[in-house]
């Protein structure tokens, strides 16, 4: 018979063996001798840390209680590994690129290196895993009791130690063991070759033990057929009726989530992965391992149910079956297998959690409190990290023990494990979004995980204290404050639902909904956008495309100081070897990733940001790089500006076009006018010439009259042609003259004299207003006179008033000489004011019967005055009459 001393001695010896394996492997790995340690099979075996004592003991218990249900725990992970190409490969790739150290680090890194999110994830993980640790403690305690004799074998108690004391002892031993095992040094990449080797060894031990028990059971039970038949005869439902229901779906979802989200699975599958191609093997070999582990579960359970006394704990069948058959050696092997599965789980889980606690909670606090300068010695940070990890391991096992203590009345193992699964499954939506949805924001991920955690805590975690707390029991029965729809296991009034389905559905549904809605409503920071692009475009960009997030003007010494504190002198020297001058952004980026490998992305970012100044500027650069929005805004502003320019240009063009068209019309009219004017004298000249040639009987008087007419008409023609020629010559700037000092008043007198005859002919008054005494200007007297004659004769010709009046006046003042010609004629319409100075223009209104000019007068006049450095303008007037003003500078 097995004595407790022997069992404990074997257990301790086994632990010593593990320690030896880890030690040797570490040494080999350090000397690069153990290539087999990096083989895909070692990797796969290490992943099977998934199979804990829940698998070893609990699966049989689960199969005995609810048939095929236990298989869902292994089918979910099988599907995830079959599809390794899509999710696991991404996780491994991004974690290598970004030196991710844990699941909290992954999410924090993706969502803008947020420390707060990392803290939240860490806290949830520590709380969520407590039941799982408790499960291992319970399993080891129960197995010790089973093999060393309480229960079915009374009289051989462990010398008065009760269950709680035993569990505490196991917890303390495990804590010590894990601290010795997992925190000997801080690896730059958080890879633990020794641990992985030991875990792989344990995987073989537990598989061999379970297969041995399975083969023993088949042999003892007389073959599969006999076992199933006997069970059916004993009234056991071997067909698992109604097994494929919503609970089956929920368990598959949970286990698939757990294989990704459990901190220890992330640690082994992603962080400890040394080569992405190992996933190729693990993709089929891990499912195969799971298949082997669950191959004999059902026969063992059924054989146990039919052969063991009623009331025997089915969770312990793998131990009690060989014991009751007197196979003590096999029982001891089985105990070691179970012990193996428990120790490997506790070691890896608490290492993974302790990394999270020290990197995401302890380090940021220390950095904040000491402003990054408190830990001065080169080994300081390393020691701080190690101590905080040791403390975390102790804390994690203590929490596990507390949970075990408070819930010790529940007997089955599997439901406890499912609580933990559901807790960590709350990370799943955030992880999937991190990898595939670029728009997922930090606020959304934080809110989503928090919401999922609250629902889980309410509907899954809290109910496990029902037996130890009357308050919880009352809430379970009536809801808080009598609110029935908030009862933990019937949320929102959904009755008759399986408690597991209840919590899985509501927590993941509300979690995902929060993630989606908040992401759509919030915006990402610059850093978040950069990280999101890195994660989601993983396979689209080249590996060198990582943007350097921290840039600035740190000296090499500053950086070296930081590096040696975190990485140690040796590694820092390797990293900085041969560096000179100022560090490049690429180097700072590489350093940040190296540091992230030790203390997590968020802490590394904070630490380097403190050293490297100019972070704010570089964030702007990042914003420029990643800010498609900003670019789009700039682009659209540019477009807007250009289009408004275009609009104004178009408007100007349109105005010019209107003017051009008006001028064109005027020109056409003018040309027909010119033809008409030329034609009229030509006609009379021709007809009078013909009369003179052909009629012989003309009197001399008639003859003279005809010749005079011809002469007059040719003069008119000459004048017209002169005008046109003068016009175009002025246009080309020819026919220049030299401005000389002249007395301008004389020109007015001459013009008045010339025009007085015309005025008399029209029977109108040509009055002279106030006159300047004299005015010396620079100009040409004949031209000035010509302009004045043009203005005065226009005023006379177009005046249709009953008592026509034209007044000419002049004055000097403020260095200027001004002449005004005022009439009381029809005036000039507002629309024509601009046009009258254009060439070929002619006033249209006024019903003038016979315009005598060619319409060039005002245009020529203006050009002439301008040549004298003066201005000719039409005064804006109202009512009848027009007033033209000539302004010339006085000498």
């Amino acid at each position, binding site marked *: 018979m097995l004595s407790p001393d022997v069992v404990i001695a074997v257990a301790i010896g086994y632990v010593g063996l593990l320690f030896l394996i880890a030690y040797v492997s570490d040494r080999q790995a350090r000397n690069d001798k153990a290539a087999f340690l990096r083989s895909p099979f070692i990797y796969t075996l290490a992943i099977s840390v998934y199979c804990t004592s829940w698998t070893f003991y609990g699966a049989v218990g689960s199969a005995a209680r609810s048939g095929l249900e236990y298989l869902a725990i292994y089918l979910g992970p099988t599907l995830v590994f079959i599809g390794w190409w899509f999710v696991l490969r991404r996780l491994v790739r991004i974690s290598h690129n970004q030196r991710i150290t844990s699941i909290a680090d992954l999410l924090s890194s993706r969502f803008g290196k947020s420390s707060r999110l990392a803290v939240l994830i860490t806290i949830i993980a520590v709380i969520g895993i407590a039941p799982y640790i408790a499960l291992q403690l319970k399993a080891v305690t129960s197995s010790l009791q089973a093999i060393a004799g309480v229960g079915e074998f009374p009289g051989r108690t462990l010398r008065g130690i009760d269950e709680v004391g035993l569990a505490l002892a196991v917890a303390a031993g495990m804590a010590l063991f894990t601290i010795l095992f997992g925190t000997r040094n801080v690896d730059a990449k958080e890879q633990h070759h020794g641990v992985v080797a030991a875990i792989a060894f344990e995987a073989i031990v537990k598989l061999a033990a379970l297969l041995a028990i399975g083969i023993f059971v088949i042999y003892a039970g007389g073959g599969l057929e006999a076992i199933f038949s006997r069970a059916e005869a004993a009234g056991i439902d071997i067909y698992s009726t109604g097994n494929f229901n919503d609970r*089956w779906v929920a368990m598959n979802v949970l286990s698939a989530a757990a294989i990704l989200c459990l901190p220890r699975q992330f640690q082994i599958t992603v962080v400890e992965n040394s080569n992405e191609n190992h996933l190729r093997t693990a993709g089929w070999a891990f*499912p195969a391992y799971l298949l082997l582990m669950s191959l004999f579960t059902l026969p063992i359970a059924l054989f146990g149910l039919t052969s063991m006394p009623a009331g025997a704990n089915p969770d312990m069948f793998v131990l009690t079956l060989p014991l009751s058959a007197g196979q003590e050696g096999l029982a001891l092997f089985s105990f070691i297998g179970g012990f193996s599965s428990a120790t490997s789980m506790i070691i890896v889980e608490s290492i993974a959690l302790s990394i999270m606690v020290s990197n995401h909670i302890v380090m940021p606090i220390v950095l904040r409190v000491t402003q990054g300068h408190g830990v001065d010695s080169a080994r300081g940070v390393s020691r701080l990290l190690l101590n905080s990890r040791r403390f975390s391991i102790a804390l994690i096992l203590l929490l596990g023990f507390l949970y075990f203590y408070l819930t010790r009345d529940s007997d089955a193992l599997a439901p406890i494990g499912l609580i933990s699964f559901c807790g960590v499954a709350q990370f799943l939506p955030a992880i999937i979004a991190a990898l595939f949805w670029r728009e997922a924001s930090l606020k959304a991920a934080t809110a989503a995980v928090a919401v999922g955690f609250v629902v889980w805590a309410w509907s899954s975690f809290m109910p496990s204290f029902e037996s130890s707390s009357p308050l919880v029991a009352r809430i379970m029965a009536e809801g808080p404050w009598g609110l029935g729809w908030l009862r933990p296991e019937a949320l929102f009034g959904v009755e008759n639902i399986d408690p597991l389905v209840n919590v899985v559905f509501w927590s993941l549904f509300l979690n995902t909904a929060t993630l989606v809605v908040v992401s759509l409503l919030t915006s990402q920071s610059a850093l978040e956008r950069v990280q999101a692009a890195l994660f989601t475009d993983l396979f689209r960009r080249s590996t060198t495309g990582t943007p350097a997030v921290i840039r600035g003007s740190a000296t090499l010494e500053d950086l070296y100081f930081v590096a040696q504190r975190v990485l140690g002198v040796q590694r820092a020297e390797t990293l900085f070897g041969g560096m000179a001058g100022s560090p490049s952004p690429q180097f700072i980026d590489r350093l940040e990733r190296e540091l992230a490998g030790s203390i997590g992305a968020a802490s590394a970012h904070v630490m380097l940001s403190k050293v490297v100044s100019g972070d704010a500027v570089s964030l702007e650069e990042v914003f420029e790089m990643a800010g498609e929005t900003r670019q789009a805004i700039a682009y659209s502003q540019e477009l807007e500006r250009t289009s408004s320019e275009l609009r104004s240009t178009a408007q100007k063009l349109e105005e010019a076009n209107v003017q051009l068209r008006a001028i064109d019309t005027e020109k056409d009219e003018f040309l027909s006018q010119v033809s008409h004017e030329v034609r009229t004298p030509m006609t009379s000249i021709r007809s009078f010439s013909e009369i003179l040639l052909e009629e012989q009987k003309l009197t001399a008087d008639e003859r003279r009259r005809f010749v005079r007419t011809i002469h007059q008409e040719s003069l008119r023609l000459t004048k017209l042609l002169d005008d046109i020629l003068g016009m175009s010559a002025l246009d080309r700037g020819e026919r220049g003259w030299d401005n000389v000092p002249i007395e301008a008043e004389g020109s007015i007198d001459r013009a008045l004299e010339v025009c007085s005859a015309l005025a008399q002919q029209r029977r109108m008054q040509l009055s002279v207003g106030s006159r300047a005494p004299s005015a010396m200007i620079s100009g040409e007297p004949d031209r000035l006179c010509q302009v004045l004659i043009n203005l005065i004769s226009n005023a006379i010709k177009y005046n249709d008033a009953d008592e026509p009046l034209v007044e000419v006046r002049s004055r000097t003042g403020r260095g200027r000489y001004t002449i005004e010609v005022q009439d009381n004629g029809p005036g000039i319409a507002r629309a024509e004011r601009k046009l009258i100075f254009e060439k070929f223009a002619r006033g249209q209104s006024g019903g003038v019967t016979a315009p005598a000019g060619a319409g060039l007068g005002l245009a020529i006049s203006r050009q002439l005055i301008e040549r004298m450095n003066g201005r000719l303008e039409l005064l804006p007037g109202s009512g009848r009459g027009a007033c033209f003003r000539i302004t010339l500078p006085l000498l």
Partner: protein
Amino acid sequence: MERRKLESAALFLSLLGVLLILPPLAVVFQLERRVFGVPLEVIYLFVCWLGLIAAAFWLGRRLPREPEAEPPSEGEG
């Protein structure tokens, strides 16, 4: 097969796996019948499982390898 087809095959294999083990397909084999003394649905699940493993083995050897997949060498210190 080409790279894209292999990737598609990997995706469809995963989706097929999901469909195979969930109702309604799984329920189809709950016939209260025994094969070699074992209930048919148990045989069904294990055969599906084995099939998925074999397919994953086949695909794992053929899915494209990328040269830069190898991470930088470890153990610098």
